């Protein structure tokens, strides 16, 4: 009978026939707290007491937290040594690029670091690069995770251009990231006694076990016309090449540190450490800095003052506000819920227009 929805509803509302009156009852809404918008709700009222208490509590918790974090960060001993400038022989100081690009020049360089305080084992060795854009779009995309994972996907190198393949076949690992692998090396000795550098367990567990295949071996790597960074031992599977894994976890920011290894012995205060650096990596063309970092850790991680300072600032601000509110409350109290403070009660015209 009904030709469309509109007539259906109208017949129900029209209301003279018996049929429609029965429909009317079914249209009556079901009563529930949801349909009546009466669900239980919590609505804290910001009374002066509550506000002041909240601010005070935040302040009291945050300031000690900040102090503890700051002191933990202070305990971390860190040695940072920039060597890119000083490792260039003085006769090349005007043309560093020529120095670094000439393979026949010996790139060894010896630096001496002084331990300021006792550094408890383990001491982590990092290299830090500045102004190095590992997050550049062209760079970050130029890799093939499939290829790294299994041998069967060796040929999936479509994202890797321009370092995708050579005349002998696909490059494993392909792409700009792997190609530009950092290749400075460091040797440490104290009083001409060599310190062992442990280069195991520096990569992520997931990288070693899942992302880099244990049966994937480097192939055709750094064999093209342009040599980027380090070469890889083609008889070692990728899952054992921890330096590569570390490098291929690309950094989000242009200044970053990457783990080089660990020294598993204590370094005494005022000890002089001799570092023999093979200064191979080219950061001179884009005036990037290279730094060697030795650091211990605490429960908070590395040296990081930010967290502590942030806690202290927020806590201090909260305490300050609490004090302000207390003063305001004491000096100029105001009854709560007084309707005469409502805006329309204050302006007699009553109409904001």
């Amino acid at each position: 009978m009904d030709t469309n929805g509109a007539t259906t509803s109208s017949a129900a509302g029209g209301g003279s026939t018996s049929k429609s009156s029965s429909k009317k009852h079914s249209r009556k809404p079901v009563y529930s707290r949801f349909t009546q918008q009466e669900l239980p709700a919590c609505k804290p009222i910001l009374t002066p007491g509550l506000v002041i208490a909240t601010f005070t509590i935040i302040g009291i918790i945050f300031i000690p937290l900040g102090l503890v974090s700051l002191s933990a960060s202070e305990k971390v001993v860190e040695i940072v040594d920039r060597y890119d400038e000083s490792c260039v022989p003085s006769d090349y100081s005007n043309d560093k690029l020529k120095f670094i690009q000439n393979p026949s020049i010996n790139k060894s360089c010896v630096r001496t670091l002084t331990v300021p305080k006792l550094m408890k084992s383990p001491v982590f060795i990092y290299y830090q690069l500045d102004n190095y854009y590992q997050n550049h779009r062209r760079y970050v995309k130029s890799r093939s995770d499939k290829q790294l994972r299994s041998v069967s996907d060796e040929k999936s190198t479509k994202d890797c251009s321009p370092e995708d393949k050579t005349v002998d076949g696909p490059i494993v690992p392909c792409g700009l990231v792997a190609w530009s692998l950092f290749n400075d090396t460091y040797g440490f000795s104290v009083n001409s006694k060599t310190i062992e550098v442990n280069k195991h367990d520096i990569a992520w567990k997931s990288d070693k076990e899942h992302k880099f295949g244990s049966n994937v071996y480097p192939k055709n790597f750094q064999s093209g016309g342009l040599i980027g960074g380090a070469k890889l031992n083609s008889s070692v599977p990728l899952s054992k090449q921890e330096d590569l894994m570390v490098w291929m976890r690309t950094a989000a920011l242009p200044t970053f540190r990457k783990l080089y290894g660990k020294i598993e012995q204590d370094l005494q205060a005022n000890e002089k450490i001799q570092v023999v650096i093979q200064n191979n990596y080219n950061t001179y063309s884009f005036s990037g800095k290279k730094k060697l970092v030795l650091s211990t850790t605490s429960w908070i991680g590395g040296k990081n003052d930010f967290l502590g300072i942030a806690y202290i600032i927020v806590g201090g601000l909260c305490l300050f506000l609490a004090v302000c509110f207390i003063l305001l409350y004491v000096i100029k109290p105001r009854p709560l819920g007084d309707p005469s403070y409502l805006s329309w009660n204050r302006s007699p015209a009553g109409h904001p227009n």
Partner: protein
Amino acid sequence: MKRYVYINDNESSHELYCDNRISNRKYTVLNFLPKNLWEQFSRFMNQYFLLIACLQLWSLITPVNPASTWGPLIFIFAVSASKEAWDDYNRYLSDKKANEKLVWVVRQGIRKHIQAQDIHVGNIVWLRENDEVPCDLVLIGTSDPQGLCYVETAALDGETDLKTRVIPSACMGIDFELLHKIKGVIECPNPDKDITRFDANLRLFPPFIDNDVCPLTIKNTILQSCYLRNTEWACGVAVYTGNETKLGMSRGIPEPKLTAMDAMIDKLTGAIFVFQIVVVMVLGIAGNVWKDTEARKQWYVQYPIEGPWYELLVIPLRFELLCSIMIPISIKVSLDLVKSLYAKFIDWDAEMIDYETGIPSHATNTAISEDLGQVEYIMTDKTGTLTENRMIFRRCCISGVFYGNESGDALKDTKLLNAVAGSSPDVVQFLTVMAICNTVVPIKSKTGAISYKAQSQDEDALVNAAAQLHMVYANKNANILEIRFNGSVIKYEVLEILEFTSDRKRMSVVVKDCQNGKIVLLSKGADEAILPFAYVGQQTRTFIEAVEQYAQLGLRTLCLACRELREDEYQEWSLLFKEASSTLVDREWRIAEVCQRLEHDFEVLGVTAIEDRLQDGVPETIETLRKAGINFWMLTGDKQNTAIQIALSCNFISPEPKGQLLLIDGKTEDEVCRSLERVLLTMRITSSEPKDVAFVVDGWALEIALKHYRKAFTELAILSRTAICCRVTPSQKAQLVELLKSCDYRTLAIGDGGNDVRMIQQADIGVGISGREGLQAARAADYSIGKFRFLKRLILVHGRYSYNRTAFLSQYSFYKSLVICFIQIFFSFISGVSGTSLFNSVSLMAYNVFYTSIPVLVSVLDKDLSEGTVMQHPQILFYCQAGRFTVSPPFLAFFLLLYNRASESEYICWMVWSIFVPCNCCVCDHHTCLCLREK
């Protein structure tokens, strides 16, 4: 343009006109996909997202996986497409049901049972009692010997009374058997949607009757979707079929209304788009410069010396894609979702159920709930909206004698009862007019009790009152009326009915007294339509006084009059009337003109006063809403005094010392102009005082003011918080709404009857009261409520909550998109302006959908203040009206907003940086915590 319908001619009209297949479907199975896609893509937002999604397929520039845009895009499209498909499927089902209904149709002279969809124009359709009419028919026969039948038109116009329909005079007396073989031609206009007019002619072919043209009116038709009642059978000729019926033509989808918030969101989207283009251009240039100066030195990036020709475009396009999330893709979907929930909350609200009838409130339009919270002007009808529209005859004045003044009820006034008992001629005449000057149908039940089916509540009240005064309108048999008075039966023959129109403001019947053969014209109507036409020499002063006095009491008045006609005068006029009735063009106007020739020289009999009580809670509702800063205008067809009285009694205007009424009147342009200027001047002076000033204008002055002094009147409209417009026509009501809308006010129109439909449709929000005048208004409206007092809850609770929730949700949508986008932009400065995405595709998608879009939907349950508080302090609505979301110079607001967001994401970005740079050396994660390529 005309169409000629050949009755019972099976061949000729088949090709010309469509068959009776009803189709409300928008799509077919085949065209669904392309048509729906085309419709969805006609929206700018969708085009934009499609462009982005396509660009993402180009792997050189895409920062993220294309799935992060395609996924949501396809999801959004699938949601709206399946909604459309479901609606269309339901329409298809109901069409199918209607089309396959079996009806009796004459084929080759024999009645056959066929499907409704096979009816063709010119077929004769037979209907039984309680059948639904399958298409528009011209009646040619009924079971009633007088050719009458009754139809219920509720589905068409919402009026629940029975209407009489009559067969054309030419078909009168044709034998039942012969109806199968009837031949003829109906000349009728092309299909239109006016359900009150059908100006056609019928000519039957021999042997049925001589070739005489017989005029047809809407009275001779039964329209699609009506029901045949109280009549054993009826048959008619199909004139309009299928989608060309009056109902089919009037269907049609109304223009979707756009809320202020929607407009704001669109504007904001546009502004963000412009901003995005600027950002893209700046970053694009910066990126290209950085590439040429810095990136070439970064040997590990291996930029080729010579790039492809489009190289310069690559970086800007990348940023365009990165920034595309600035415009939230999910906003439309989530807004549609929450809006339908708001509508459901209104439907469900137990406090808005009319317990008298059990009808809950209903939101027909689910998209504009938040506009309810921004209403500034309410235009309200009076009768049936503010009042109950339950008319009770209270007082009368018969030839200068007032009845009912002491007791307040004329029916109990002994003076009147005595006069009736004594058969005082004036009183009898008066009662006769009350009883028969109408279009009421008396229906006798089996017990003998008489009930009346009336279209107008006033007529109902008059007939009932007359019956109580022993003048019982007992029976109507075709043209013969039977009236019982004090035991005697009087019969009248109705010769003509001069129907009521809102222009004429009166209606008349011409009857012939069956006893003495006298022809009398009986009229009733508004005072200004009757009193000026009294015969020369009659003292109308007492009547004018009576009208004034009754109006002061807020009663509705009608003047009753009669005139005896000479036989030849009637005959002469009758011809003119017939001619006018059968014209095809301007019929209404022609008829009015002819009626005018008869309706003069009245002998005014008296004045009736009918009470119409205020609905419960009207004064409180109006007071609360006025406190909420909402301005009220009353637009009524009623008299000025009645309107003012009602306005006073429902807090609409304040009484004298506090309030002031300013009258705009005048008959000529000059008078109106002067009065308008005077009112305007007073209004300007008093606007600063805390005084309630209202202006009153009548339809005539309004017409002039709107036509010639629109500017002054607009200024007045803006200044005045309250106005009463009386004697206005439906189109003037709509014009007033239009006027206020053009001043950028949010208007709400509320009404209950067919005369409010136009204003309801015109207003930003139309509210219909499902009252006694049928459902026409409720049908046309966006919201239908049972009683006026629910308006308070509708606006202050539902409107306000909806507004706040939508405001929060849309602000939040933009906010979360901007935050994540600004993180990307700041990151691009430390990633060599190369367009790297800080987030991977999965995280981005999850952020947009799971982290931010879905959980925030819970905010539709938020109530910032309890319902009680809002009702107590309705002033809180000021903030909604002013528009928390719509701050006046939108661009300034927009950039402030942007600035806030920018500083926030900058902060987040720096925080990320400052935490994670040193973190690189943590033991727990030896490397960058924020990894770019986590897979």
